């Protein structure tokens, strides 16, 4: 086993806040309330959702990209940006030493729903032969590989809302075992689709506040999550490789831990033991103590149940009360993308020495007293190490330890 941190040498992002990491980071620092996309029909009546604004060939060039399911399009854009920043030229690299790991929760739900409509209207003959190539859950990884000549492993990890974080963890492991020299990790999902939203609404998981400030992580008056979508990607390399080629250094992935609750299909275990174990495993992997952690970027979905279990777990594991934020206040919940989006934003926090505010949360749930949740406006802080948590349906827990 090789050891050593994985260095992040490039990052890219597409969210409801815009195209590119800078756009999203700016919105998150400001705690801005996003308005969604005007003229888009209501996905589920009375529910605030945050889709990504449509974009064209200027953002995503290349034949065969226009009609891919949006989850693939978002991934391609985020990976293009990450590779450009990393300085790698995929036309000249040894693609056998490069891998891609995509985390995704849903796959092409919108494409499949549209195909079902065509099937009902016109029978089997009306169904496009592109239904599967444009929507299968591993097609983001497959399409990224074709676009950039990646011929090493291409994995897709499906762990609901933890998928994006798990992808980064698996990518780090591919470097550590020596299987790859460069790994592109990406989280992506395009879940702002009526049937998806309706399903979450039926579970009682979506906020019933049809307002721009509906996503309120850890707030006393939170009522559920706001459905959103997007993608984020990072390029990971071993420390010595990144140094040798004088690559950009956006931060590092120091450790990760994955556990499973094995408790209930969708409810987190009430004592948060599985999630806590993921955090402790990630810290052990990074060879750090809980007291070394300067900042926690929480999963913080704004659902009553998740935030209570997670807030208590943060108080338990980190009694020194590091500042906590939850990016979903601004961005909503982008499902399989969220873990990767939040990892990239956490790296920005570490680099800038800034903890962004948890948007829309005015008073923290009194049951979570002790939680140092940054609200209102951003806070400057000296940050070296941070933990980002991601907790998904199916009891999937993942924690990342990130460093400067």
């Amino acid at each position: 086993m090789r050891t050593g941190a994985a260095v992040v040498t490039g990052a890219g992002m597409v969210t409801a806040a815009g195209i590119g990491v800078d756009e999203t980071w700016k919105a998150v620092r400001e705690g801005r309330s996003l308005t969604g996309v005007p003229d888009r029909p209501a996905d589920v009546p009375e529910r605030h959702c945050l889709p990504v604004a449509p974009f064209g060939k200027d953002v995503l060039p290349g034949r065969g990209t226009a009609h891919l399911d949006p989850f693939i399009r978002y991934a391609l854009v985020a990976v293009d940006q990450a590779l450009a920043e990393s300085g790698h030229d995929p036309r000249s690299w040894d693609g056998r030493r490069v891998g891609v790991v995509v985390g995704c929760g849903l796959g092409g739900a919108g494409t499949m729903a549209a195909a079902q409509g065509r099937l009902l209207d016109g029978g089997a003959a009306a169904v496009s032969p592109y239904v599967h190539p444009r929507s299968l859950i591993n097609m983001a990884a497959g399409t990224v590989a074709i676009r950039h000549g990646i011929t090493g492993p291409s994995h897709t990890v499906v762990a609901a809302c933890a998928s994006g974080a798990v992808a980064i963890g698996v990518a780090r492991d591919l470097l550590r075992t020596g299987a790859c020299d460069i790994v592109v990790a990406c989280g992506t999902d395009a879940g702002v689709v009526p049937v998806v939203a309706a399903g979450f609404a039926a579970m009682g998981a979506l906020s019933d506040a049809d307002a721009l400030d509906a996503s309120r992580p850890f707030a006393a008056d939170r009522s559920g999550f706001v459905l959103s979508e997007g993608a984020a990607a990072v390029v990971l390399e071993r420390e010595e490789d990144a140094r040798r080629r004088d690559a950009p250094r956006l931060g590092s992935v120091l450790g990760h831990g994955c556990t499973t609750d094995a408790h209930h299909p969708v409810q987190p275990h009430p004592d948060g033991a599985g999630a806590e174990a993921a955090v402790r495993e990630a810290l052990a992997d990074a060879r750090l103590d809980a007291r070394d952690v300067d900042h926690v970027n929480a999963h913080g979905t704004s659902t009553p149940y998740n935030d209570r279990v997670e807030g208590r777990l943060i108080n338990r594991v980190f009694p020194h009360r590091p500042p906590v934020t939850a990016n979903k206040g601004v961005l909503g919940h982008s499902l399989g993308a969220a873990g990767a989006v939040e990892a990239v934003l956490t790296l920005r926090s570490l680099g800038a020495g800034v903890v962004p505010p948890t948007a829309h949360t005015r008073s923290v749930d009194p049951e979570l007293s002790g939680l140092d949740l940054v609200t209102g406006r951003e806070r400057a802080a000296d940050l070296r190490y941070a933990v980002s948590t991601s907790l998904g349906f199916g009891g999937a827990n993942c924690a990342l330890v990130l460093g400067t």
Partner: protein
Amino acid sequence: MSENLQATIIKILVEDLEVDAEQATGDATLAELDLDSLAIAELVVRLKEEAGADLGEEESSMGSLTVSGLADLAVAAKSGEQAA
């Protein structure tokens, strides 16, 4: 009728299959436009939907057809259906 169908085919080629608009002419063969068997199958589905021309199971032999040749074939398929 053949001209109308050719216009429909070119629209599908450009909008759905992302063929460069300048290359999508009547003289170009489907193979020259880099349409693989999947793309040709998509073209057949869309032609049936938009023009009512059922080209059935002939996809595998269509690569060497020009766009105008395909339009003629579609016209024949439509009149055949009307006759039947």
